[in-house]
């Protein structure tokens, strides 16, 4: 069984749900605090940085946490080919640490900027993502089918993937298959409107990987969509009707749409 460290930072608030989602797919998660000896990470096959507000998002989301010694140890895991996933605030940390997109080793090449919605600020709702048609096999996409649409919640104020040289970087990311997931509409098509792309992210990117595929940053929360009871009744088919039809605790405890992203983590780690 693959061992996964769920890294709890001061301000993380999704570590338990993330650990449960890992356990549900047959991984062996262990919540590890940021101030434990970083050398302990050596024993793990992967690290997941969960959602939350590390250090209260002081300065900007992910900026302070990215400088922690434990993130240097996470970078060593990534360089060694182990798995690293950042979810929401974890994604912001990975981008601020230069681990994603990793086009030039060590460089901070992108940002997760404040949402571009007209109202601005924090946005919390269900959206849809789908694997990018050119996405490479990665820790987040290994178990996904081409073209499948995954309903999933977002909850962030700073989730807009941007780069100073945006068009050039986007072309490189598409070419290398590092744009893993993108926001899509109900028909599964990418659209450049705030209803579909909730933060105005470059290329509609919802999840981005490194060139090797073992590191990924995802802004939506798969751990909040890993059980049917988490799915809103008005969700797209088949999930909404399935949720409405659930009559028992056992029915509600069935897998939700986000579970497949954790299945991808397991499949990717088991291939290694």
């Amino acid at each position, binding site marked *: 069984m693959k061992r996964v460290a769920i890294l709890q930072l001061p301000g993380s608030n999704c570590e338990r749900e993330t650990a449960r989602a890992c356990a549900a797919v047959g991984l062996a998660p262990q919540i590890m605090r940021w101030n434990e000896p970083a050398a302990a990470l050596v024993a793990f096959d992967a690290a997941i940085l969960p959602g939350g507000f590390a250090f209260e998002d002081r*300065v900007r989301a992910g900026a*302070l946490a990215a400088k922690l*010694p434990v993130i240097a140890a996470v970078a060593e895991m990534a360089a060694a080919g182990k798995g690293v996933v950042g979810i929401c605030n974890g994604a912001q940390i990975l981008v601020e640490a230069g681990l994603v997109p990793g086009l030039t080793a060590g460089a901070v090449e992108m*940002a997760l*900027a404040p949402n571009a919605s007209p109202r601005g600020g924090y946005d919390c709702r269900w959206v849809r993502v789908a694997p990018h048609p050119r996405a490479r096999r990665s820790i987040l996409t290994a178990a996904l089918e081409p073209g499948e649409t995954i309903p999933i919640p977002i909850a962030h104020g700073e989730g807009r993937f941007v780069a100073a040289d945006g068009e050039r970087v986007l072309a490189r990311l598409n070419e290398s298959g590092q744009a893993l997931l993108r926001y899509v509409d109900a028909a599964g098509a990418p659209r450049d409107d705030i209803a579909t792309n909730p933060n105005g992210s470059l290329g509609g990117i919802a999840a981005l990987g490194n060139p090797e595929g073992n590191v990924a940053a995802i802004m939506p929360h798969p751990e909040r969509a890993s059980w049917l009871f988490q799915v809103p009744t008005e969700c797209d088919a088949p999930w909404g009707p399935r949720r409405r039809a659930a009559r028992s605790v056992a029915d509600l405890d069935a897998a939700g749409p986000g579970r497949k992203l954790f299945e991808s983590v397991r499949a990717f780690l088991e291939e290694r």
Partner: protein
Amino acid sequence: MGEPSRLVLRVALRGEDLAAISALEVLRDELGARDLAALSRETVWEIALDGAATEARASARAADASAAPASARARLAEIARESLLFANPVKERWSLEEGALRVPDAPPGRRIVGLLVRDRLDRAGDACARALETDWELRAASVRRATLWLLDLPDEGREATAARASALGVTTRRDRGLLLNPHYQDVGILID
């Protein structure tokens, strides 16, 4: 009319600024800036006023409601005092200045360098401009919100100290820069 066309409203916390304290600790402990003596932060509202329109509206208001005509500057100060648009007086203090931003004087052997950080997409500034016009009848040609970081560094000469502040501020690697991300923010350097 003698009306200033550009005003700067500076807002700072009355109590401890935990973000600045955290940033100072990280710059010293993780990025090696042990000679950074102090770091503080202000929110800066840069307001370019449409003077003629403002005067006309102020005069109209005075005629209609027997209120005293107000210059744009006085009107802006009134808004800052009477609303929470720029600052919450319970926890923040503010000052209104004309012209270019200045950094404080430094003791001998030190320099204060300001890093004025602006988001390229400034929703807060746009929203403030709308609120000024619709709620307060003050038309601004533009409103920009920025963050001013003030770094107290050893004086290594004007250019070298400015470069040092820039290197500490602009995030280019995990171990280099903290205060802004150049992929969505711009920075102006203020130094005497």
